[in-house]
């Protein structure tokens, strides 16, 4: 396995800049997730790394060696796509063995057998080896396509939304399998997705991409707890972060069109107008809370409940554990955890002020 680096990659297509000065480094053995909405440039990034697309500027390095001039076949990568591209008339065994049977590799058949079987075991598809792939379920097929990628030991795995065509339950279970497999094999993996929960749950590190630019790179905790912009703050977390326009007067923050005021420490260097983000789990119904509002909606999800609380003209979402006895129309007192507030400039960039001492 290898480390892979992109240095100042720019890629233009007629009329658009698909990638704009993109740089990041994937460490050896790391599970790196590229997260962004449709059209952000995620797939283009993968294709540049694979050599399927040639960048206009910048360098791609594998183990500190530029690979710009290497054709795809010589880069030694393995791809897993959203659409499983299996040979329907072959058995699962032959599909898995296929990448090893390349005449260039000359791997003896008994070695192929042991690697295919070991791979099938890891993916829990050992019982399917004799089946034709056309007769498998969607989840089984995706396991086989992942198996076909990992049966080799390439320098890097590139995965392009491999879970997005599966139903929710399968996605959940494959997410766990992929993470387990990646961690126990220590394989370098670049996983592309638009699904924030896949990014948070699987990644060692995440790069958030929007309109061809990297907005933030960090661990899942960094991205969730210290989003660099309002875009990132809104991209991760369900339900979505509460975001309000607010103003600071002396040492008090006022959320516009609401009765919510928060004290800020004298040392905090906040602009006079700003955007204030509060994660729903940090809005906590509490009889001793400083604020009051009216419950306008409750959404019980089982493990937790989303409570919509109206304060003047603003609605805050509050996420509380379990079921709630709160009813629509109830007056509710609540508190907001000050150390968990997120302040942004009006242009969306995070204010680097510490609010924790209040």
């Amino acid at each position: 396995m290898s480390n892979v680096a992109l240095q100042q990659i720019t890629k233009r297509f007629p009329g658009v800049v698909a990638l704009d000065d993109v740089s990041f480094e994937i460490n050896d053995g790391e599970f790196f997730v590229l997260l962004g909405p449709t059209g952000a440039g995620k797939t283009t990034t993968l294709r540049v790394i694979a050599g399927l697309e040639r960048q206009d500027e910048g360098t791609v390095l594998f183990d500190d060696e530029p690979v710009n001039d290497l054709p795809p076949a010589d880069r030694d990568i393995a791809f897993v796509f959203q659409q499983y591209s299996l040979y329907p008339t072959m058995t699962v065994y032959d599909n898995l063995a296929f990448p090893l049977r390349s005449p260039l590799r000359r791997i003896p058949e008994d070695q192929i057998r042991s690697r295919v079987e070991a791979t099938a075991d890891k993916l829990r598809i050992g019982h399917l080896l004799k089946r034709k792939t056309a007769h498998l379920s969607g989840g089984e097929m995706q396991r086989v396509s992942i198996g076909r990628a990992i049966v080799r030991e390439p320098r890097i795995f590139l995965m392009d939304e491999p879970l997005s065509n599966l139903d929710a339950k399968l996605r959940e279970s494959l997410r766990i399998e992929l993470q387990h497999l990646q961690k126990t094999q220590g394989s370098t993996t670049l996983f592309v997705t638009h699904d924030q929960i896949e990014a948070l749950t699987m990644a060692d590190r995440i790069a958030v991409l929007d309109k061809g630019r990297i907005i933030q790179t960090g661990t899942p905790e960094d991205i969730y707890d210290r989003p660099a912009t309002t875009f990132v703050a809104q991209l991760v977390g369900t339900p979505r972060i509460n975001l309000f326009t607010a103003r600071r007067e002396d040492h008090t923050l006022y959320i516009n069109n609401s009765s919510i005021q928060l004290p800020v420490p004298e040392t905090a260097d906040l602009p006079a107008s700003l955007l204030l983000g509060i994660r729903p789990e940090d809005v906590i119904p509490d009889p001793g809370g400083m604020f009051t509002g009216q419950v306008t909606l409750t959404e019980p999800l089982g493990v937790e409940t989303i409570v919509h609380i109206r304060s003047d003209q603003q609605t805050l979402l509050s996420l509380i554990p379990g079921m709630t006895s709160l009813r629509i129309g109830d007056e509710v007192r609540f508190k907001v955890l000050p150390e968990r507030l997120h302040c942004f400039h009006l242009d969306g960039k995070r204010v680097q002020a510490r609010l924790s001492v209040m």
Partner: protein
Amino acid sequence: MATIDLKQVEKKFGEFHAVKPMDMTIQDGEFVVLLGPSGCGKTTTLRMISGLETVSGGRILLNDRDVTWLHPSERDIAFVFQFYALYPHITARQNIAFPLQAQGESRETIEKRVNEVVRVLRIEHLLNERPGKLSGGDQQRIALARALVRRPAAFLMDEPLGALDADFRESMRAEIKRLHIDQHATTVYVTHDQVEAMAMGDRIVVMDNAVIQQAGTPVDVYYDPENLFVARFIGSPGMNLVTGFFNDSMVRMPGSDNTYTIPTDWAEPLGEAFGREGDVIVGFRPEAARLSDQGPIVGEVYATELQGSYTVLHININEHDIVHIRTDRLVNYPIGTVVRFDLNPKMVRFFNPKTETAIRREVRK
């Protein structure tokens, strides 16, 4: 205002039984969600209620009136589809007004009702746009407005949020529910998304294999699933289900020394179900487990998932079973770490592995 009654309604397509004879009553003003995986029969059921599909047997009553063989247009029901069938060449306002014009309403009435519905849905600013220029979320709002403006006796919605991206789905989900709370129109809503069903439904009807598996409130289906299918389908991740051997007051699960002492109020129902001993499936939600050094169940961390405000630990307790438990975020165990956990006795459930159904006990209130 409407009640909807299905009496032994069924649907066959040739040899294929899409919906087996089912009974269902939807009360006036109720929001009922038909939930299940694709192919379970939920959409066919909805289409039979609407009249878009004929029944192969049984009767459908709308306010006690037999509508089984009435044309869809005679049923006074509005249908909202996943794909917003809007007319692309006319404005949003004209799209919304269309059903009222077709009914021959006066210009004043049309004006008044359109204005009312656009205010509720907060789409005033879109009225002069043509649908083709609007985002998916806005198009779906207009489709909803067009359904609402008719003031039908009942709404039928077939995955109306299915084509929207996650963000929009969340906010539209709340808007539709808010609207229902204000207007109290009887609504039957089809989805395969259990989160949507939990968040929106007064009642959830879970379907699988052409049969109703359970009908109940979100609390019922979440905490007291009728069978293994419902236990797995509801929740993300679903309920943990581990097969063990019941003997006396203990359940032994596969794996090193996983012996769980059953809560006292379960002794009697389990005794009735199995006599002295037998195989039993222990079910518990991820939040029912607590990490604890003295916990009776032991396993190895298989994977950890940060879910935002909390973490889910996946624990391998034997060669077959990986259980999922919810912990606070500070927990960070590498794969392979040995952990112990305990179960909240109020949140443990038991199932009969032969029938796959829940074992029930008297709940003392």
